[in-house]
């Protein structure tokens, strides 16, 4: 059984999705328990794989028993196993949250919703563990199609947002596919490691086709992760989707695409090519500075809670892309650590936004009026997520920023360091504004001094039900745990970074 654990990571949600599709039409009630059980099994498999990778090194799993590059293989190293664990854990927590909200927000389409949800998880987990460049494309398609539908199942405005996402996402995927095609023309292989070996063996790093392939793949992946200025599809998609959809897409889709970028940069093209031969690090770091500032400042202008969080994702993407392109091993550690930390902190705040929407039916920040007394536990969970996004120790967000800033200083990219600090300050302003509204009450409207009387009809609002509270508090606890055990996580990441050959190309 343990031999099959790499495949089981995604086979559990995959088979569950088929069963939900078949049985859910007749008995919609089976959808939710099946989803949770299969995601839990997936988490267990990922943890088993992570433990095995740490003990025995890279796991290769030959699908169909064919030797790569003839067949497709899963190739799971420390990085892949770590990200797979985080992805499946986020999938599990968001699934638990969905219990009440999916029937409430999607009506008669519960079984379809969970089918798509499980297929999304299958696609994302498959992207993380695959070792084949074309297979990656197929799984990008699976996860993209499901996310379009998961967004479009929201209220009316969600359809338009999803339509924009369809167009942008398709362009991104096409770019990626073209890039893989160019790589195949020049190397004759599709296996990631094999492509890299062929690039070296044929000595074609100077070739224009490889350069174009690199540009196409990178830009394609950037579109998919909403890297500034290719981010226009993201805010509305995540703001108007059903709350469960934004709770799972917000943390995962962008983060997995950043993982894909790291994978392609280091495994397929290699650090020597990306950072040594091409001298674009400066430009990309400046782009990420723009992403961080634009994302943060736009977030400041929002009154809709989930839209504000969506803009924060754009800033966070800037952190991670910048961290990778600092071409510094501490920066890379920071970036990867931030993938894990950001997955959980985004989940935390989106779960919070979902709970607020479920309880008050409102989307804007004033819905939070006086909630500290009404839902203290929810607010505690939120506080941890907010502190993590600001970067207050000992939450996970502090340590990832710490590494990113150190990387920025070590590589001399001061503009990046300043952008990170400014963005942290803006996050502090954003979240303390929320805390203020929730603790002291909303600012009274002009001319009405006695606002607290007007809110009496809201007094029915009470603590969130356990199915929503548990995932929120579990995420908050995980954020603290990721922060406190940062040494162990960094040890796992360092395993990958030490093989990335970054140290050798630094001046």
């Amino acid at each position, binding site marked *: 059984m343990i031999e*099959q654990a790499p*495949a089981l990571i995604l*086979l559990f949600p*995959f*088979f569950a999705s*088929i069963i939900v*599709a*078949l049985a859910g*039409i007749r008995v919609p009630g089976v959808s939710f328990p099946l989803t949770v059980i299969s995601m839990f099994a997936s988490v267990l498999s990922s943890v088993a794989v992570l433990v095995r990778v740490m003990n025995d090194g890279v796991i290769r*799993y*030959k*699908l*169909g*028993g*064919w030797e790569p*590059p*003839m*067949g*497709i293989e899963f190739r799971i190293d420390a990085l892949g196993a770590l990200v797979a664990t985080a992805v499946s854990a986020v999938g599990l927590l968001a699934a638990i949250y969905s219990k009440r909200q999916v029937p409430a927000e*999607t*009506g*008669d*389409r519960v079984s*379809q*919703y969970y089918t*798509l949800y499980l*297929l999304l998880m*299958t*696609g994302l987990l*498959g992207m993380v563990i695959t070792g*084949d460049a*074309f*297979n990656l494309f*197929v799984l990008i*398609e*699976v996860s993209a*199609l*499901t996310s*379009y*539908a998961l967004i*479009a*199942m929201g209220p009316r405005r969600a359809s338009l947002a999803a339509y924009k996402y369809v167009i942008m996402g398709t362009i991104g995927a096409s770019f990626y596919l*073209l890039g893989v095609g*160019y790589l*195949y*023309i*020049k*190397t*004759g292989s*599709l296996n990631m490691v094999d492509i890299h070996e*062929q690039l070296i063996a*044929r000595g074609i790093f100077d*070739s*224009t*086709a490889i*350069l*174009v*392939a690199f*540009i*196409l793949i990178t830009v394609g992946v950037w579109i998919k992760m909403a890297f500034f200025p290719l981010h226009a599809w993201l805010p509305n998609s995540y703001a108007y989707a059903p709350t469960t959809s934004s709770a799972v897409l917000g943390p995962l889709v962008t983060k997995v695409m950043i993982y894909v970028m790291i994978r392609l940069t280091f495994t397929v093209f290699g650090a020597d090519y990306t950072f040594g031969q091409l001298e674009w690090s400066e430009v990309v770091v400046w782009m990420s500075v723009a992403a961080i500032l634009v994302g943060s400042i736009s977030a400041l202008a929002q009154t809709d809670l989930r839209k504000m969080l969506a803009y924060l994702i754009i800033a966070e993407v800037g952190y991670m892309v910048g961290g990778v392109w600092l071409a510094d091993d501490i920066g890379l550690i920071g970036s990867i650590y931030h993938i894990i930390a950001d997955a959980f902190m985004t989940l935390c705040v989106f779960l919070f936004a979902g709970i607020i929407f479920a309880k008050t039916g409102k989307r804007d920040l004033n819905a939070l009026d006086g909630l500290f007394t009404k839902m203290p536990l929810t607010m505690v969970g939120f506080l941890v997520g907010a502190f993590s996004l600001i970067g207050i120790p000992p939450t996970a967000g502090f340590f990832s920023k710490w590494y990113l800033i150190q990387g920025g200083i070590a590589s001399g990219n001061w503009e990046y360091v300043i952008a990170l600090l400014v963005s942290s300050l803006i996050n502090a302003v954003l979240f303390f504004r929320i805390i203020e509204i929730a603790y002291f009450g909303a600012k009274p409207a002009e001319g009405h001094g006695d606002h607290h009387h007007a809110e009496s009809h809201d007094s029915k609002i009470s603590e969130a039900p356990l199915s929503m509270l548990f995932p929120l508090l579990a995420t908050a606890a995980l954020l603290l745990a990721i922060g406190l055990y940062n040494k162990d996580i960094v040890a796992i990441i360092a395993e990958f970074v030490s093989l990335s050959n970054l140290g050798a190309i630094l001046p």
Partner: protein
Amino acid sequence: MKSLALISVVITGWLLLSAVGDFPDWGDPDSPANSYRLSQHFVTETFHETAVPNMVTAVLADYRGYDTMFETVVIFTAGIAIISILRVFRTEDPGAGGPKVYEKRPDLIVDTTCRLMIPIIQLFALYVIAHGHHSPGGGFQGGVIFGASFILIALSRDMQAAHKWVPERRVLNLAGIGILIYAGFGLASMFLGYNFLDYAILHKIIPATPIEARYHSMLGVEIGVAFTVTAIMYSIYSNLASKGTMKEGL
């Protein structure tokens, strides 16, 4: 905004063209794609390893069967996505906002022609599915042809006539069962102790040598693909054509 779009299109086009000069010549036998051990292996070994003469099918359904499974999932997802977005389950207010229900006017010529053609189309679809091992064809192509035959029923008569053969629930079942067949072959190989989708081990449960087991399993997964593609083809048509009411379409 338009000029921005034009600029990005021009840049992309220039980028794509600039790489063309760097490509190997047309039909160059020494090009990487032709000379690398990957394609060499497929050309020389496929028949010995899988007993399938059509190497495209072997690459598709066996060497890269995992990709093909997820391509089938992509089609399945598209179908489910369209149902979840378009399908109107509540039917309290018929007519409101829905398309106009046309009076049924059976046309003798159209009806008779389609009546004659549909069995032939379906038979041909089965042939394409089953003969994918030897000639161009397979589950995707055959499934599309089969699905088209149901669409033809709906077009030539009306949607209710087609629903007699493929009611909605049956469509969804077929689509799910198709993927279940494909993944089931993978799961069976796993239970027998090999890796996922390693069909060779199935010789333990079907009377065949390991190589023949690959041959037969490929037919099996092609049938699974055909189920899903047939069902989803028709499902997408009926949802789009009836604006999700599944009552009356084009």
